[in-house]
């Protein structure tokens, strides 16, 4: 690895001056392709200053050194180098700048796991040629892909951070979180509905309970329901998913109990309309036009129905508060609603309002993650720039850690 720059240097010093007759490639070896499912071999050999477009390399393979060899590949000798970015430094089958060829099993030359195969190279220019030694290797499936170990480290590290911050939040759920602009409006909207004696409409979006945005929407619904119970206003929650409805029913009921108004809870404040996008939208639009809710909440994930809902809502003069991570619909919410929680603000709002340790902890964990990524982006760019100016590969020891390898 350390002599990788050296090889490059040699390449440049060399040039066409060396163009003699073909010589066998140096350092030629065959090995099982690392980090794969088997049935493939890898060939490695040193770069030579005399590699040119005119000089070609042929790969010959056989089931054993004695058996008849078969030509399986041919290419110009100045191709198939290991380039930066091909392999991470911790799992390189060959040094950067060396030649590397993956020989997969094919119909022309099938490779089975567990049996040794013999391979040799032929270097050829015009009618002159030179053979390499015969090398042998056995293909085998691997149990771990080392090139992706950084990915696994991220999973483990993030799990640790997440569990740590949830535990911290359990001890102290009142960690400082920044103010979120749209949230003050929630109280205002509920107050206004009470004054006007009109209901509040709350939608939880189109997603199922396995989406972050839906979970956040149900948590916020719980907080809204508490306030609604205290103010004694009507709450209407039309649903698209029976499971989400079942969850919301529980949540609203608990909120009423917590607010000390179990008597005011109505089972039918949560009701199912249909799973179909546009039937649902038309039905909700109908509710908006007939009952003229004073406040409309749109939380969760949305698709094309967003604008149909918010435009109708705006025409009835309701205060509209939206929160979604569906980035493709955000422009419409931002333009047609009074307040919009953008992307992760929705998750944050659910933690902020409920102070549920799991949610607060998760938010904190994600913040750590983001801070880390911001650091990587800024420092990484600085390092990459230094590397480019100083023309050194050393920076790749750090940068490779944050790359995606296969």
């Amino acid at each position, binding site marked *: 690895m350390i002599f990788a720059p050296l090889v490059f240097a040699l390449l440049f010093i060399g040039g066409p001056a060396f163009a003699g007759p073909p010589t066998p490639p140096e350092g030629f070896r065959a090995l099982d392709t690392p980090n794969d499912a088997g049935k493939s071999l890898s060939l490695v050999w040193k770069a030579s200053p005399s590699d040119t477009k005119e000089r070609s390399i042929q790969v010959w393979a056989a089931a054993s050194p004695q058996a008849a060899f078969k030509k399986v590949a041919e290419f110009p000798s100045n191709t198939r180098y290991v380039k930066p970015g091909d392999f991470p430094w911790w799992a390189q089958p060959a040094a950067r700048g060396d030649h590397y060829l993956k020989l997969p099993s094919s*119909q022309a030359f099938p490779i089975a796991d567990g049996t040794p195969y013999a391979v040799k190279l032929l270097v050829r220019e015009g009618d002159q040629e030179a053979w390499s030694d015969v090398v042998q290797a056995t293909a085998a499936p691997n149990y771990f892909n080392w090139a992706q170990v950084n990915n696994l480290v991220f999973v483990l590290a993030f799990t640790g951070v997440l569990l740590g911050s949830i535990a911290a939040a359990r001890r102290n759920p009142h960690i400082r979180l920044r103010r979120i602009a749209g949230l003050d409006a929630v109280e205002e909207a509920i107050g206004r509905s009470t004054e006007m004696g009109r209901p509040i409409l709350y939608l939880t979006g189109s997603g199922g309970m396995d989406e972050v945005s839906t979970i956040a929407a149900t948590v916020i619904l719980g907080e809204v329901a508490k306030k609604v119970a205290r103010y004694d206003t009507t709450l209407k929650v039309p649903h698209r998913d029976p499971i989400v409805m079942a969850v919301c029913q529980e949540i609203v009921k608990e909120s009423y109990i917590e607010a000390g108004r179990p008597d005011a809870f109505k089972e039918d404040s949560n009701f199912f309309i249909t799973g179909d996008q546009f039937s649902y939208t038309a039905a909700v639009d109908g509710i908006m036009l007939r009952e003229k809710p004073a406040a409309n909440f749109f939380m969760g994930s949305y698709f094309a129905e967003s604008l149909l809902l918010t435009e109708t809502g705006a025409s009835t003069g309701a205060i509209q508060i939206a929160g979604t991570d569906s980035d493709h619909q955000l422009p419409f919410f931002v333009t047609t609603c009074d307040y919009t929680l953008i992307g992760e603000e929705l998750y944050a709002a659910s933690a902020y309002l409920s102070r549920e340790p799991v949610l607060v902890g998760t938010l904190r964990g994600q913040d750590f993650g983001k801070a880390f990524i911001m650091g990587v982006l800024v420092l990484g760019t600085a390092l990459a720039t230094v590397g480019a100016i100083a023309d050194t590969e050393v920076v790749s020891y750090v940068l490779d850690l944050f790359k995606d390898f296969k």
Partner: protein
Amino acid sequence: MKAFARRMVGIDRRVIFLLIAAAILLPMLKPFGLPIKVSPEVKAVYDYIEALPERSVFLLSFDFDPSSKPELEPQAVALLRHAFRKNLRVIGMTHWLTGTGLADGVFSQVAAETGRERGKDYVFLGWSPGGSALIISMGQDLYQAFPSDYTKTPTRGMPVLEGVRNLRDVNYMVSLAAGGAGIEMWYVFGKDKYRFEMAGGSTGVIAPGLYPFLRSGQINGLIGGLQGAAEYETLIKRKGTATAGMDAQSAAHFVIIVLVILCNVFYFILRGEKGSPR
């Protein structure tokens, strides 16, 4: 002045609906044919297909349904015309149940017009559930994921699929997507692991969200909306429905731009007033 502005701000939205309908209808009845400029992201898809050798395997996934037909069908038709002209082997499929009939129709129509045969030059596999699980399944063994094609012909032994075992044997793939189950899923569960080159065609709604993937090379090209389809039609030098629609598109955009400007003019007139509209 202010009274007028107030009246205009509160105008019945049905007037606006009529304006839009007129802006689309008139140019469709009497087109003016403006030239179409080709963007690099569309050119990239064209160039890649152009460079593929004959009988390469091209997978086209129809990840949309009739609700996005006007935008994505012209893209599909243009891509298929190009692929058939280049004599590629085309595999079609869909992740969207309700788009199945539509996709099959497009295949039959373009194949008939270019004289390509089902089973020999192309196959339409139809729909199968599972989304990402389906892609993984196809990546391992195509014949397990789709034992038979849309016409219930067994897929094993079809001439068009000769030498194709799984997604690794696909040379190029394009996902025409209208949302969720589409380009990103194909990248994450397909290309990422089975290493084929891919591009995306999408509705205008999701196109902006795909630019980060374009930049990072996760997709090598992007055809966005009707404009993208029109660009592709320009590249293959065969005008179709997309090019024909662009005049109406232009007119409607201009009506909306004028509306936005008017809205702001009225807003500024009324701004100082008390109780001005929110």
